[in-house]
Every structure is written in structure tokens, then in C-alpha cells.
């Protein structure tokens, strides 16, 4: 009897020890997967937000894979406007079938402050628009999640993702259909991207030391669609000399004598242009406008006097 009791006490102690050990393992990042509804019909589109809860830690780098029932859903669009992302390392791009993502948050991230609550709350890293292809029950979550502490050492911390379970029915649910229209259909965002940083530099790691531009714009709507660059004189700004570009962009005029304009275009077609002045301005006598002004300046008074003389005559 005594031996039986002793064994039970030992088992209980072991259980308590294991429980205490595992309960103390806290996740420093939890990804919340949020959709306003969880029941949809075939052909419905619905938006799912992925929010990061740093659980009181300060984190500055996040990575993961968008994992979902690909037999039931297809991912149609990623919306990355108005998010906590500082700089993308790998943007999730639905078109190529790879849904990995990673980004950094300079200065660290504990959550988002707002006047509508006290303390920090989870902030959105991006949202994705899914299309329900066929009936069934499926899931959406983030797998292979990684988070790094803002401690200057690159310390990896534990991460966890909620799983969103979604049901798709064959029957057409009109209320769900109306709700799940993409946001851009409901109202048009007319706000241009915010003022953004464009920096010019050179480094031997990029095109053997050629001068390049680095840029990154923030936007409050559905996200940046693309960037365009124009190199040349300001009078060509309104032509079709713009080329699509990505950061870092190796500039064509390595003599740095051209004006450079970088245009950020968001997903609703709104744009914002930033200018980089030439480091080495061309000499004044190379400008045609200067010679036109000189010629006009000389000839207009001449013709005026002739005209006056002719009138009095």
C-alpha cells in the first residue's frame, strides 16, 4: 500500500513538474487570423487579416508561410497598406504560388497604440483576399512562424499562429456575398501614398559599385502596387519616359547629372512623386532654355522698337 502511495505521489510530482515547465514556455509572437465571417458560399471572396501580437516583448523581424486549404480556396490578392511592416524582406506574392513572407520592423514592435484603447494592441501585417472555390471545411493559418527580439543579438523567439476554420457551402448566401466584396469595390481610396524616403548611394555589393537608389513608401490604403522612375530633365516629367523599377535601382546616368524622380503608385492608382536633385549639375550653357531666353531677351526689344517706329510713321 505504501509503495502504491509513493508511486502515485511521484507520478503526481512528475506531472506537476512537467506542467509547470511547459506552462512557463510563453510565445513571444502570436499571429491572429481574423475574418469577419467564417461561413461562405462558393465563388465568394473574403478578406482575412493577419495580426501580430508581440505578447509584451519587443520584436523586430517576422517570417512565416501563409498556409491554407488550397483545394478549397485560392489567394487572389495581398493588401499591405496601413500595416506594421517597416521593410519587406520577402513580400507574399500570390501569383507565383509561393506564400512565404518576411519583414523587419525598425526600432522594434510591441503593438500599436491608438486613442481608442489603452496599451498596445496587435497590428496588421497584411491581409489576403481569398476566393472560395468549392464546398467543404478548410483552414487558414501561418505556419513556420519566426520572430526575433529587438535585442541587438538576433535572438529567435517562440511563435504561434491561430487557425481560422472556414466553411464553404454550395448554396448561394446573398448576405455573405454582399459582405465579402473586396474593400476596393465598396469605396474608392483617393489618398496618395505618404511622403517617402529615396536615398542615393553606391556599394561594391550592388552592380560593382554603381550608384543606386533605395526607396520604400508607406500607404494607408490597399498597398503599393509598383514604383516608376524617370531620369532626365524636369521638362520630360510628363512624358512616357517612366520605367517600372524596384529598390535597389541602379540608375542609368552614373555621372549623377540628371534629375531623378521616383513615383510610388498604390493599388487604386494614386501616386506620389519624390525628387532627387542631380549631384553634378550640367553647366549652364548646355541648357537650351537658357539660349532661348537670351535670344528672346535680345530680339523682343528690337522688334518692339521697330513696331513702335512703324506705328508712328
Amino acid at each position, binding site marked *: 500500500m505504501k509503495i502504491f502511495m509513493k508511486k502515485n505521489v511521484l507520478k503526481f510530482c512528475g506531472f506537476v513538474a512537467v506542467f509547470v515547465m511547459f506552462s512557463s514556455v510563453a510565445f513571444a509572437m502570436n499571429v491572429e487570423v481574423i475574418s469577419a465571417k467564417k461561413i461562405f458560399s462558393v465563388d465568394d471572396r473574403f478578406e482575412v487579416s493577419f495580426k501580430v501580437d508581440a505578447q509584451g516583448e519587443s520584436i523586430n523581424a517576422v517570417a512565416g508561410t501563409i498556409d491554407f486549404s488550397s483545394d478549397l480556396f485560392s489567394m487572389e490578392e495581398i493588401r499591405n497598406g496601413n500595416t506594421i511592416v517597416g521593410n519587406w524582406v520577402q513580400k507574399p506574392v500570390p501569383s507565383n504560388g509561393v506564400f512565404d513572407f518576411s519583414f523587419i520592423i*525598425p526600432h522594434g514592435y510591441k503593438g500599436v497604440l491608438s486613442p481608442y484603447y489603452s496599451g498596445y494592441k496587435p497590428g496588421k501585417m497584411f491581409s489576403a483576399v481569398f476566393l472560395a472555390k468549392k464546398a467543404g471545411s478548410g483552414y487558414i493559418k501561418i505556419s513556420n512562424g519566426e520572430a526575433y527580439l529587438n535585442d541587438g543579438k538576433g535572438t529567435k523567439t517562440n511563435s504561434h499562429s491561430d487557425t481560422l476554420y472556414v466553411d464553404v457551402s454550395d448554396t448561394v448566401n446573398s448576405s455573405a456575398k454582399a459582405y465579402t466584396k473586396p474593400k476596393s469595390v465598396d469605396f474608392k481610396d483617393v489618398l496618395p501614398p505618404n511622403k517617402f524616403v529615396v536615398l542615393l548611394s553606391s556599394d561594391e555589393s550592388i552592380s560593382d559599385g554603381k550608384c543606386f537608389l533605395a526607396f520604400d513608401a508607406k500607404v494607408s490604403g490597399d498597398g503599393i502596387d509598383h514604383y516608376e522612375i524617370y531620369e532626365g530633365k524636369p521638362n520630360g516629367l510628363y512624358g512616357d519616359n517612366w520605367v517600372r523599377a524596384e529598390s535597389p535601382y541602379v540608375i542609368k546616368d552614373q555621372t549623377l547629372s540628371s534629375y531623378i524622380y521616383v513615383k510610388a503608385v498604390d493599388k487604386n492608382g494614386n501616386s506620389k512623386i519624390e525628387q532627387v536633385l542631380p549631384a553634378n549639375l550640367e553647366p549652364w550653357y548646355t541648357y537650351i532654355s537658357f539660349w532661348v531666353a537670351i535670344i528672346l531677351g535680345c530680339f523682343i526689344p528690337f522688334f518692339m522698337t521697330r513696331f513702335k517706329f512703324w506705328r508712328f510713321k
Partner: protein
Amino acid sequence: MIKKTKIFCSVFSLLFFCNVTVFADESLDVNVTAVVEGHSSSSDDSGGGGGAISPYVNCSGYAYPNAKITVEIDDNNAGEFNAYNDGTFSYKIYGITSGIHDFSFYAKDLKYRSSKKLSFLLDVPNGSITNVSNIFISPTISSDKLEYGAKDKIKFDGYSMPNTPVYVVVNSSDGALKSFSKEVISDKNGYFEYDPTGSVFNYGDYFVTARALYAGIFSAFGSSVDFQVIDKISLSASRQKCSMKVDLNKDCEVNLLDFVVEFMWYKKPLTKEAKKRFDFNNDGKVDLADLSIMASYWTK
């Protein structure tokens, strides 16, 4: 039994030591409230609320008397202004679009030393006046030399809120030596000095940082100053300005330019030279951990 107690004590003291050496990086007690047009202060969780006015943010907090304060939004300069004579400041930031923005504040003291940046993400609602208070900029601090002999006199000084307790913490860089802190009081101009005479410094690398306490709120720890105790005084080139490894182009800023250069080597095979320059944690590869290290030292 005695042996068991001894083991317990040693484990306990180890944990205690770890707690002392880990600094609370961002002790941010920023208060955020909003006045939405047509409403008073709201507690609606939806972040909604809208009016015709374009949103602006009313910032206030604590720095140093007459400090020059810079505010950046999403890495763009959004304003420069001076703190009042008593070290407090308030400033209105106009022209902000609604949505989530990265706000950063830093101050320059009367000796042109910059504080550590205080950053936070703020969701600015549309059509509202957002009030952000208790922005407490951490003290500046620097030493009069970079290297000292073991018997040399060391002096640290900096600026904080006036007549305020400032906690100066000296720590060894490798964590092997004992850390200690000292409370000093800033004068009416916010100036404080710390002379660790009587403290025993073994030869080695140290760093010193400070935080202040005002109106019941602690600031975050400020920028740290490295110094070295050696057997003779000589300034070391490696400890000069812009010596941070993550500042790849050595322009004294860690920013987008360093990020795109580091990104060129992300998950790619490294040459010997590239390993030396881009592998910050010396694990033989450039991955998200290295970018995380860079993000920790981001300046603009």
C-alpha cells in the same frame, strides 16, 4: 541538506544576476487619447469615427531644458522644435494621413549630443485630434575619454529633466564582470555628472547608459557609451564614431541604404569578405537574424 541549499542559492544568485544585466529596452508609458469631431474622448475599439477635419497629432512629454527635438514619421522629418525651459515640450503635427504610422522622437542636448530614439506605432484615426502625452526622451550621456588607465579619473555627463533622479548603469560588455548603478540628481538645467571614483574597474570593455525618473515615470535607457579600461591611455580607432558593424556604408546612420546592401546577401552563399562584413552574428549565413540585428540599431 546543506549541499542542496548551497546549490539552490547559487542558482538563485545566477538568476538574480541575469535580471540585473537585462535592461528593459522600451519602458514606454505613452498616453494616447483623441478628441474626435462631434465626440469627446472616445473608447470605441473599432478605430472608427470620422469627421471633416484632417487629423493632427498633439504631442507632449519630457526631454531636457531647451533641447532641440526632432520628430519623424515613417522615417521622414515631420518637425523640429525646442523644449521649454523646464524640459517639457508640446508640439502639433499637421498633415498626417489616417492609418498606422511609425513615430520617432529624439532630442539634442546643449552639447549637441543626440538621445536614443523613442519610437512607437500609432494608429491615427480619421477626422480626429489625437493627443499623445508622457513622451519621455531618455537622457544623453557620454564620457570625456574613450579609454582609461585603471587609475585614471573617469567622468560621465549628460542631460535629462531638471532636478530629476538619473540612474547611471555601468556594465561590462561581455557580462562577465559585475554591473553597478548609481543615482545622481540633475541640476536646474538638466545637467548631470557621474564620477565613479571608488569603483573598482578591472581591465576590460564596459558600457554605460542612463535612465531618468520623472513624475513617477521611468524613461527608457538611453544610448550606451562604450569604454575600455586598459593599462595605458590611447585612443583606439576602432572605437571612433560610425564604428557599428551594421552601419555598412559608415555614414553614421543605419537606414534603408544599409538594409538594401545587406539584403543583396540574404540567404546567398558568402565569400570570405562578405562573411566578415555582412554576417553580424557569425553563424556563417545572412538570414533574418542578421536583419533583426540591423533593425535593432536602425537610426533613420
